């Protein structure tokens, strides 16, 4: 017991436990503030790093992946001659399940005609049992064979959807989940390249 004097001059006896608990609670709140600042600092570092924005309008890299189902290692040529959507997803990430489900629905509804769609996960195929959405999807699902693939697309956080045009140019890349966001991002893969757009605008204004 620790004797203490109150504000009005009365001497009280404070149990040691109570005294320690006050300091411990103060320490917890202090730690909480430090953790928040650290996490926010990491976020700001990530956002200020040259990343997704600079990937747009650059050539997508060729890579190989292990197709889930038959475990065949396949090559992915960036310039496949058709618009492509690559979704970087993980079965343990709830937002990824949402993207996979919505992407499956959009594709099944025929709203992505001519598109090649590939779901890529960094997890081993044995992890897929934990997600019913991943197990039941009809989209092509591949496991990355190299960490470099993820780094090349700046897919440090999932879900990430990347739209690539038929020539292999990355046209858009973003963390999306909903049907509207998927359709909006996929449209970028079918637009003419930026240079062509400028030329088209010039032709249009000359015609006026």
């Amino acid at each position, binding site marked *: 017991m620790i004797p203490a004097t109150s504000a009005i001059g009365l001497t009280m006896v404070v149990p040691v*436990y109570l005294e*320690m*608990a006050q300091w*411990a609670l103060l320490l*917890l709140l202090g730690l909480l503030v430090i953790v928040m600042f650290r996490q926010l600092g990491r976020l700001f570092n990530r956002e200020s790093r040259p990343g997704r924005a600079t990937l747009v309008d650059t050539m997508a890299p060729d890579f190989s992946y292990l197709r889930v189902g038959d475990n065949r290692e396949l090559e992915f040529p960036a310039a496949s001659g058709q618009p492509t959507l690559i979704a970087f997803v993980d079965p343990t990430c709830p937002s990824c399940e949402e993207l996979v489900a919505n992407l499956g629905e959009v594709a099944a509804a025929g709203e992505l005609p001519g598109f090649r769609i590939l779901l890529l996960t960094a997890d081993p195929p044995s992890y897929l049992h934990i997600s019913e959405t991943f197990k039941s999807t009809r989209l092509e699902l591949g496991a990355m064979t190299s960490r470099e693939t993820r780094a090349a697309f700046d897919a440090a956080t999932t879900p990430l959807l990347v739209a690539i045009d038929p020539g292999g140019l990355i046209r858009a890349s973003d963390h999306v989940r909903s049907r509207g966001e998927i359709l909006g991002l996929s449209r970028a893969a079918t637009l003419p390249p930026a240079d062509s757009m400028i030329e088209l605008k010039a032709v249009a204004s000359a015609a006026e």
Partner: protein
Amino acid sequence: MYVIPLAAKLALALTLIAAGSAKLADTRGFASTVRLFVPPGLVPATRTVPVTRAVAGVMAAGELAAGCASLAVPRAGWLNWLVLGLATLFIVISVVGYARYRDRSCNCFGGLSRRKFDRRGIARSLLIGAGGVVATLPVPASAVRLSAADAILLLAAAALAACATFAAAKAVAAVSSA
């Protein structure tokens, strides 16, 4: 040296409060970790998500309740054994997680940290276990004799700390996924 068991008891109680409330802020994320430990076929496929989410919620709330009770009622010796039981469970989970899902996020503190199933995770669990053992050591009754008002105030402070942790975890998770 009875201060050491009391310090261990407080540290564990606050850890449980922080971990429980941070997990409650992101039960979806914690449910994905729970799903890792559900053997295939144990739960019908259509019920996996709601069941694991419910289990995650109950586990998080249990941690929070154990932490609050341990903090506010230090004289209840059985709570020390309950906390030691939880610590033992953490050790088992971290070892199994390391063996089967190495380097995957354990969501131990929800969105507040990026702790993984790795060797450091096992070391942390062992430390918590050691703290749990120390907390069961006897202390003089006078050191933990709290009035009802003291206990209520401690409970209120614990609730405040839990709310702050919950809000911080929610905010960090929201900003991180933006």
